[in-house]
């Protein structure tokens, strides 16, 4: 069955700490991978995406993610978090020819000054 797992449900960090949020997927065939972010009181918005090519993708606000095909993973990283990064982060996948997104359960990130 197609699924996305986010093992970190709640992460608490101090400003300037490094961040890595895990994402593993189960999906047959070629995949597209996404990280979405939902800031408090705001809509879901796209942080970054991977379709093909360089497995290290860079997104907005200093975030990056690495696609490791052999591990079925697409972990999100940021070298130094800020208080404004406090939000919920969702990993999602779809397949070539299938537009619908399959989301993980999300990781709530709290950053304290």
């Amino acid at each position: 069955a197609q699924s996305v797992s986010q093992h970190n449900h709640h992460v608490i960090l101090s400003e300037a700490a490094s961040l890595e949020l895990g994402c593993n997927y189960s999906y047959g065939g070629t995949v597209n991978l996404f990280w979405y972010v939902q800031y408090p009181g705001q809509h879901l918005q796209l942080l970054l995406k991977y379709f093909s090519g360089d497995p290290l993708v860079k997104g907005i606000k200093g975030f990056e993610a690495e696609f490791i095909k052999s591990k079925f993973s697409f972990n999100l990283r940021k070298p130094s978090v800020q208080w404004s990064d406090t939000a919920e982060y969702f990993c999602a996948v779809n397949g070539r020819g299938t537009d619908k997104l399959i989301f993980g359960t999300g990781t709530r990130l709290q950053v304290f000054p």
Partner: protein
Amino acid sequence: GAGVSQSPRYKVAKRGQDVALRCDPISGHVSLFWYQQALGQGPEFLTYFQNEAQLDKSGLPSDRFFAERPEGSVSTLKIQRTQQEDSAVYLCASSLAAGSGYEQYFGPGTRLTVT
């Protein structure tokens, strides 16, 4: 610029009532999606339109759920005889064209509470 809008933002329904949730996608966007997000969970796919054609409704949980997009723009998700388990945030998303590579832009959602 205008994003995806949804109305109402909040809806309280008594068990057994019918509800209708509206989505206004970004103008010109071909694809429209509905997702259901239960508390503490990620969004789950309900249904997908390409223009006015409903191409995938595999995620609709029961025949009480019905969606339409008659003119290929505004969409309505209708839930008949609401049950408590229908309580969730209903998200609408649109994308410029068909194809898995296009970004989906999400609306603010409608929070449905069934009492």
